[in-house]
């Protein structure tokens, strides 16, 4: 478990984003237990209060749920994870497309470039 923290941005948000990415990728599998607030705080070297706030935020997405006295678990509803994964991908894609369009590329040109994209690129 590794966290790259940029102190110029809200730390809790970076923790939420990291955990969402890890859940989307299956690093924390459906139904699996997330590390505790203290463990995440130790790994990211931040205040447990900050991590606690990140966990609350994460619960609001529906991707995880906390069971009293047991810990925080990833949802077993894989559809929720899939939707979130696509939602995140779409947000990244929209951001990226905006920049590509600034170069004046047409949809056809973008599709041609995409088709040429290799698996390892």
């Amino acid at each position, binding site marked *: 478990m590794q966290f790259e923290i940029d102190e*110029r941005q809200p*730390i809790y948000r970076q923790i939420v984003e990291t955990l969402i990415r890890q859940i989307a990728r299956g690093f924390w599998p459906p139904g699996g237990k997330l590390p505790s607030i203290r463990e995440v705080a130790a790994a990211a070297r931040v205040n447990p209060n900050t991590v606690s706030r990140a966990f609350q935020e994460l619960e609001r997405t529906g991707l995880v749920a906390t069971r009293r006295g047991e810990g925080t678990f990833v949802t077993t509803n894989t559809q929720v994870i899939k939707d979130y994964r696509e939602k995140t991908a779409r947000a990244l894609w929209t951001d990226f497309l905006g920049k590509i369009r600034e170069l004046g590329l047409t949809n056809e040109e973008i599709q041609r470039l995409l088709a040429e994209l290799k698996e390892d690129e």
Partner: protein
Amino acid sequence: MIIPAVMLENVVKRYPLTRALDGVNLTIESGKVVGLLGHNGSGKTTLLKIIAGLRTPTSGQVRVLGMAPGLETKKRVAFLPEVNTFYNWMTVDDLLKFVKSFHPDLDLEKTAELKAFMNLKGESKIGALSKGQQARLKLIVGLARQADLLLLDEPLAGIDPPSRAKILHALVGELRQEGQTVVISTHEVKEAEPIFDHVIFLRQGRVALEGEAEALRAETGHSMEELFGEVLE
């Protein structure tokens, strides 16, 4: 309603030749880890001493744990001064017993755990400890008290940089009591900033900027270290 750990209203502290605090208004919420940031001479130590009840302000109102500073608040507040006040002829264990005699809330079980964490031996003579070891000893004394409010004045001074992050982290993690409010004065902002919930920038005896660290990051796109440079230059 939860009572704030500290409330200051227009607090002024004048010394014969200087004005150490020049109208400070401040609320510190209970359970937070607060960074009191400023250069030397900005009033950090005076502010901590007033909260600890060791100095009285020239004017203004002070409330600590909902009370005026006094005997009752002193039982619940631990203040660790920057300067060393320990006797060199004592051993580490002598000192802990000595502290226990006037602070009965000192948890001796916890001091044993802390000695192991800080790599200090009970039989070592204080006079023979390095500056960093003395700084660690001071932290042991502060952390082992069951205080609701812990005030640390430049706790990292003298501690080698690689150990600082580890100690800071333990300070807000496993070493902190549930719900304890911690105020840390420092100018080592880079190492300390990830542990702060709230920061107060003090400049020439006034609050130059304060707020929740995460909100300040979101608003300014700056780290607390960058803000320190910007606000206090």
